[in-house]
């Protein structure tokens, strides 16, 4: 959907009743007569568009709309990499949470939770952050390429920038004391992202770098000094010092006659590289002197400022005859001295102005509230026509309004972001934790945190390559996760064995036996109806579906006494074999088994005419007839099937007592026929007579033999 994936996530702010209308391209000529809709997996909606009936035109189209297409700046493949990559940090954090809460229950002291929990959160945050992009576009100078200001790195993304912003403010408790400095670093990494909407210091530098090779006398170009002031204003000290040293006075042939000028340039460079910073340490090789504690920093800061003032008033300036250099360097000193007009001039975006406030105007800013007030002031000084998605988030964070932060995350960065950022937010403060994890009647008894996880799981379910990770998020939803998981698993296709087995495995993993039995039932019926009877019976047995197995057994009974082809006998035999392994599930199976044996011998008799096989057939017939589980309705069909045995040429196969047993059964049957509930078999009317005659003949021969 064009509006970014956040558009379909519930957000607390109503947008005044106006609804976003998106075009749904179907490529048909108008008019359209009718529409039909159906939800597919997760968040995808299928729409059928029908034209009015006509002969020569196509009748309609079916299109699929994914209601959450993800962030536009990130490709689908990258999204999937992020989605898969975030599973293990997420699962790890969840398992840590559960062991934490069980630990809490045992010790009954809240301290361990609050002491250490954020450490896990920061580890999680770093893991996630590393997924969102590799090396940042860092403004490090490279020695090998003296004129290159920027290293070429991976393009930064707003998603990563937003995640880091959340990490700075909510998860990283250790750096709470030097938040402003973290923001300075953050902007150094992501200033380029703001170039999309307006001019930034980054874009200024990039433009300047392009022209650098063509500039003869660099210090005579006013842009040189402009770029230096700008980079200095946002604290990109390494760049400033590097660019300063491109100054013409450094060239060997110039040293002798530009000594003073060069001395001034170098003095400024040294002052810049010695700038005191209130932070534990900077990245390796970065300029500036770091101080952990405020008093130390404060002392160093005073000293540094005094040095700048001293240099500013120095007599050497009069001796420097290069006007451009003199003015340029003086301008830089003004920035370092915190001259608001110079800083205002040097910065482009209000966020750059904001950061330079921390560096030069209010280096002792502490606390979110004062940071928020400062933001308002900077926006006022450099108003922008449209809000950037990153500044929206930053302002919401500084406003300390968790709901707005969530809404910004969801609107601008989508379900993945919210589902994962909830962990950071809830680590931020107790109020935020309550807001996120309190169950709400409005949401059907779930918490906001759970809601966002459900929404993200829906997004994952929408794609065939990601639905299998949705269960990990669903199982972390205490109230409604399992309900959705059940539907998700139930609605997978059973037509392909591989996915069927995977599905059943997932059910087993999450203890959803009733769902797996349902899935197996569906698979069993599908196979049974599509000519794969054996597999059908197998799945129905796995599903413990006594009802359907009983019906299948009944269908098998129906073929008792009927002549069947070799092929279908084999199939019939196979099904009985399968049913046999679980005789409880279908009544009368004992009979079916015996009948199968009998039928098998009888078939051998037909094909081979061997007396031995015939004797075996007789034995199993007698077994069948003696057995009380043999239904009476099958007596006559069985006997009629055996006519050949009774009329055996070589010798009588049944002895006197066996023949008498059968004759008695026949007698019983004749009596039963008089009862009203007797069901006549489908045999020819003369069947009974034939059997009686054959048995009588056999009896005669048996008496003679004995």
């Amino acid at each position, binding site marked *: 959907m064009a509006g970014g994936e956040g558009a379909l996530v*519930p957000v607390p702010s109503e947008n005044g009743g106006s609804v976003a209308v998106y075009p749904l391209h179907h490529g048909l000529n108008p008019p359209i007569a009718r529409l039909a809709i159906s939800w597919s997996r997760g968040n995808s909606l299928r729409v059928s568009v029908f034209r009015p009936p006509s002969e020569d035109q196509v009748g309609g189209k079916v299109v699929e709309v*994914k209601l959450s297409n993800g962030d536009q700046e990130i490709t689908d493949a990258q999204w999937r990499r992020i989605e898969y990559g975030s599973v293990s940090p997420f699962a790890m954090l969840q398992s840590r949470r559960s062991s934490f809460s069980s630990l809490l229950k045992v010790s009954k002291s809240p301290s361990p939770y609050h002491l250490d929990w954020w450490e896990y959160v920061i580890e999680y945050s770093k893991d996630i952050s590393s997924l969102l992009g590799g090396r940042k576009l860092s403004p490090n100078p490279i020695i090998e390429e003296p004129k290159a200001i920027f290293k070429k790195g991976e393009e930064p993304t707003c998603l990563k920038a937003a995640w880091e912003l959340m990490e700075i403010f909510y998860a990283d408790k250790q750096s709470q004391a030097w938040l402003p400095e973290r923001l300075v670093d953050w902007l150094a990494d992501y200033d380029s992202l703001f170039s999309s909407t307006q001019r930034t210091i980054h874009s200024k530098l990039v433009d300047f770098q392009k022209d650098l090779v063509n500039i003869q006398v660099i210090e005579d170009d006013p842009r040189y000094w402009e770029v230096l002031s700008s980079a200095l204003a946002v604290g990109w000290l390494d760049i400033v010092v590097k660019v300063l040293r491109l100054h013409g006075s450094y060239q060997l042939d110039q040293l002798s006659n530009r000594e003073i000028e060069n001395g001034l340039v170098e003095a400024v460079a040294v002052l810049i590289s010695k700038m005191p910073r209130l932070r534990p340490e900077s990245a390796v090789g970065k300029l500036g002197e770091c101080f952990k504690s405020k008093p130390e920093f404060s002392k160093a800061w005073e000293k540094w400022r005094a040095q700048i003032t001293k240099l500013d008033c120095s007599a050497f300036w009069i001796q420097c005859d290069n006007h451009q250099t003199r003015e340029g360097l003086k301008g830089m000193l003004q920035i370092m001295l915190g001259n608001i007009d110079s800083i205002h001039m040097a910065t482009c975006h209000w966020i750059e102005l904001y950061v330079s406030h921390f560096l030069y105007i209010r280096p002792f800013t502490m606390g979110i509230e004062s940071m928020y007030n400062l933001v308002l002031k900077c926006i006022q000084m450099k108003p922008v026509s449209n809000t950037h998605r990153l500044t929206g988030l930053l302002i919401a964070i500084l406003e300390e309004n968790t709901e707005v932060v969530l809404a910004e995350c969801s609107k601008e960065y989508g379900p993945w972001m919210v589902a994962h950022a909830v962990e950071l937010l809830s680590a931020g403060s107790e109020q935020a934790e309550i807001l996120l994890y309190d169950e709400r009647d409005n949401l059907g008894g779930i918490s906001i945190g759970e809601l966002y996880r459900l929404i993200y799981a829906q997004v994952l379910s929408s794609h065939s390559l990601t639905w299998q990770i949705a269960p990990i998020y669903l199982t972390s939803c205490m109230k409604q996760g399992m309900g*959705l998981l059940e539907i998700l698993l139930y609605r997978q296709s059973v037509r392909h064995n591989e996915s069927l087995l995977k599905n059943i495995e997932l059910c087993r993993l999450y203890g959803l036996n009733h769902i797996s039995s349902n899935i197996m039932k569906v698979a069993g019926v599908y196979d049974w109806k599509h000519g794969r009877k054996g597999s059908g019976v197998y799945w129905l047995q796995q599903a413990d579906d006594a009802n359907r197995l009983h019906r299948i057994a009944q269908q098998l009974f129906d073929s008792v006494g009927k002549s069947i082809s070799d092929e279908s006998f084999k199939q019939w035999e196979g099904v009985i074999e399968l049913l046999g392994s679980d005789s409880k599930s279908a009544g009368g199976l004992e009979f079916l088994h015996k009948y199968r044996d009998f039928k098998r011998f009888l078939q051998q008799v037909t094909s081979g005419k061997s007396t031995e096989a015939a004797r075996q057939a007789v034995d199993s017939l007698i077994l069948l007839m003696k057995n009380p589980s043999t239904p009476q309705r099958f007596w006559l069909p069985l006997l009629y099937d055996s006519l050949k045995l009774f009329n055996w040429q070589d010798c009588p196969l049944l002895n006197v007592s066996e023949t008498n047993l059968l004759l008695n059964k026949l007698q019983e049957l004749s009596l039963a026929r008089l009862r009203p509930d007797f069901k006549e078999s489908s045999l020819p009317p003369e069947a009974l007579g034939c059997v009686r005659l054959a048995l009588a003949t056999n009896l005669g021969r048996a008496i003679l033999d004995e």
Partner: protein
Amino acid sequence: MAKPLLTLDGGTTCSSWNYCGERLAAGSVDGTLSIFDFRDPASSSYLRSTFKSKIHEGNIVKVVWLPPEYGDAVACIFADGIMSLWEEVAKDSQPFQWNMCKSFGSSSMKVLDVQFGISLTILKMVTAYSDGYVRVYELLDPLELKSWQLQAEFQNVIDSVSTSGKASCLSASVSWNMQKGGSQESSFIVGYNSNTSELNSSKVWEFDQAHQRWLPVAEMVLPEDKGDQVYAVAWAPNIGRPNETIAVATSKGLAIWNLGLNPDHDGRLPVERIALLPGHEGEVWQMEWDTSGMTLATVGHDGMVRLWQSNLNGAWHQQAAFKPTS
């Protein structure tokens, strides 16, 4: 962005996806039923036609899939009021084919809507007829879609005194409370678009095991809207909410109702209309809840697809709309 899946033949009037979204059944104006299958389930790339045959003289107006526990089968409702059940089977090693199992309805007693639900492991078919009667059929043999038995027939009215005069119903809408597995006694909602006001309002019916009959346990209507014609009803899937959510579309708009689960002393379930939304400036054709029961998608007279959601404060609103364009 919209991804095209399939082009339909001229004269196609209705379509329906099966439970897993892998097969599409489409009906057309000349009574042709077509089945389309995804060739490769993993890529879900494109659909191919696996069956196409004229199964009836006259327009197919609606196709409904049966629950997959009963095979791959559809119910087709025709414009002349007949409804027939068709099932895909393969005998031995022969290729599969679609066979008719059973048909219901007539020109004087038209089937208007049909929906299937599983209740106590028995498949039940609720059919709404043009004579204002709801008929519930039970499948006797779970492997045989021919063997249906009429379990109950009743009018969609609260008082047992039947309505005076002959009811003439244009359309009806049935929706089951789908419980997974179907091991429990189930319930459904039905609403009518007719000239008889008592029939119209949508009512929830529940089977009373003790007296072996269907009882109306809730009526989704405000007193002043009693006679309003109902275009569509949709029971939301419930993944764990303490209440049921039901959408009812009438000429007044699209209402979202909460249905409590604890009956009062009369055996009635408490209902509350939690939202009345503008809808589609006219008839609503179809309403579908997503799997979580959090988003309702609707289509209707204005030719738009609209999505409705509740925000974090429980207020329902239109979240987005899609305008079909070439």
